[in-house]
């Protein structure tokens, strides 16, 4: 059995006394590529934020490499949702990536050449080294996502938490990011990735957490990524979608 990278126990988070996630419980072994899937509003982003103590927990315990988050945070890289920041901010891509190194640079100290070099290298890894000095609003959506990814990579963490890194990116960026994820896994890293496209889940991830306020199922993709579990996760919505597809097919046949 692999050692555990992330364990979440009995986690409940509430906004304005309305619970967003309930008694969430799962474990992620080290070295896995984990897809977190669930319908909109299922609490996926909330889960990641609660793991990192960014929002208060109503109850529950989170352990990262066997320790509370604040003791392991140097081993965790976070890729927030792309829409969560103002891309008009007056910085360039290299500046953004360097932010991943601020802790290492140290409080109040200026960024030195070795940090800039490390950031450039991270940009090269995501394939946009030539855009280092472009203002971030001039980057395309995929390039912005790559910049965010580079900012997490430059930390050289062991566990990566990513909030929809594959949302609204072009095919080439998606392929590049997936390639990078596989490479990270080969290096022994663990990645927990919120993902919206059910079709590609078995192809990209070897471990899945199905979430809809609570954990419907969690485990190896081939074991838990079943139609039955998906029905439980997406409830009526998936059935509705199926019906709509079926109706469309019928109509097409009719013509």
């Amino acid at each position, binding site marked *: 059995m692999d050692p555990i990278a992330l364990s979440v126990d009995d986690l409940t988070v509430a906004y304005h006394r309305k619970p967003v996630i309930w008694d969430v419980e799962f474990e992620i072994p080290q070295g896995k590529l984990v897809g977190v899937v669930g319908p909109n509003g299922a609490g996926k982003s909330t889960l990641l934020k609660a793991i990192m103590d960014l929002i208060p927990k109503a109850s529950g315990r989170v352990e990262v490499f066997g320790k509370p988050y604040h003791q392991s945070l140097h081993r965790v890289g976070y890729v927030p949702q792309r829409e969560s920041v103002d891309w008009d*901010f007056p910085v360039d891509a290299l*500046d953004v990536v360097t932010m991943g190194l601020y802790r290492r*640079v140290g409080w*109040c100290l200026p960024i030195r050449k070795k940090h800039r070099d490390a950031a450039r290298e991270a940009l090269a890894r995501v*394939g946009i080294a030539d855009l280092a000095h472009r203002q971030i609003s001039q980057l395309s*959506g995929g390039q912005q996502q790559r910049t965010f990814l580079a900012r997490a990579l430059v930390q050289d963490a062991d566990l990566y938490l990513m909030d929809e890194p594959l949302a*609204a990116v*072009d095919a*080439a960026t998606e392929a*590049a990011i997936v390639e990078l994820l596989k490479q990270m896994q080969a290096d022994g890293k663990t990645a927990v990735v919120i993902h919206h496209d059910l079709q590609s889940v078995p192809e990209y991830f070897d471990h899945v957490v199905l979430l809809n306020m609570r954990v419907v199922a969690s485990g190896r993709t081939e074991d838990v990524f079943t139609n039955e579990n998906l029905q439980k996760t997406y409830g009526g919505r998936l059935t509705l979608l199926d019906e709509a597809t079926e109706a469309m097919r019928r109509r097409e046949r009719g013509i």
Partner: protein
Amino acid sequence: MSEHLWRVLSLQDHNTRVVIFGTAILGFAAGLVGCLTLLRRRALVGDALAHAALPGIAGAFLIATAMGGEGKSLPILLAGATVSGLFGIVSILLIRKMTRIKEDAALGIILSVYFGLGVALLGIVTQMNRGNAAGLESFIYGKTATMTAGDARLIAVASAICVLICIALLKEFKLLCFDEAFAGARGYPVVLLDAVLMSVVVVVTIVGLQAVGLVLVIALLVIPAASARFWTDRLVVMMVIASVLGMTGSFVGAAVSAMLPRLPSGAMIVLAAGFGFLVSFLIGTRRGVLVRLWRRRKLNESIDHQHLLRELYEMFELDPSRVSVPYEELLERRSWSRKRLRRMLEQASREGWITENVSKMEFALTDRGETEAKRLTRRHRLWELYLIRYADIAPQRVDRDADAIEHVLEPEIVAELETLLDNELGKTRMPDDPHADGVAS
């Protein structure tokens, strides 16, 4: 008068000199701090704070005089201002947290109520201490004339400390303003950092009250920072420009007010800063309006140029045997007006892309023009193919004016598109127009 003017301008008068320099340092600090609050979208906090400070000023004066002290001592007044200003901020936070009233409405309520309370208290103060309280109202509109050298030194030192804090914590503040969640995930004490940033805003606002006045002090935080954004896409440069603009505005404003004591320094400072904004807004090299107009014009011209060369190329491509094309035929190809086409042709001819015959009604591509037209047509068709092939994700990436498709799309995609073209059409031939029927008919 002229002697007075000379004394001010040459800064011979010690008090004037100290006051003007103190105000200039304040302007520098406000420009710097303003960049951070602007980017953190907290620009109006300073405004609420300043307005909420008035009851504190009047109250501090009342209490100090009642206790037999010197009511008009600046540190006492500013202490009072800080206390009531912070009360104002806390009231806003409480309203927002405990009710469903949104932040802007809460801001409006608190700002006006505290200001009203301050004006009422000030009325009572002047009623009670005729003459003695004169000068307190200068906090409303700002008056450097009433400042002593000691006041100015206090302002300068406080501002300088704020500048040092911002420089020391520059990268932490930058991260906080850009991506708070990431800062939190990296273990930065976000709440504490935010509190430090807000304290800096509080200090600059409070020490700015006397020079700029509480009605206008917000301008010193917002205007230089907003002006600086027109000139640059880099935070550090923006901060430098904003600081210099804030300093210049304050210097000019304070100097004018010292020269003509009837003009409130706050108004003068804000007008000077406003002038800086107007100039930046118009000719700022990054986002100035004129620059953008000029860029748009260039873009339109370049689009016209591309359209013309492409149309010519396609006409010759359709019938390789022809030597030139007539004006009327060209006119029908697109929706351009006669005047516009004429201008485009003249320019293209001037730049050596095309040749025209004597009657000026027949046109042909020069060698150079043909090479360029071929390149443009190929690029256009690659884009068309891309749009068709990646219809779902294409629109956000399409920048047809980018000089080379390679600069916008990933090399893998370009390679794929080129193979696609080459496979379909053979290497030597120019790719066919993917929507040939559409345009020609």
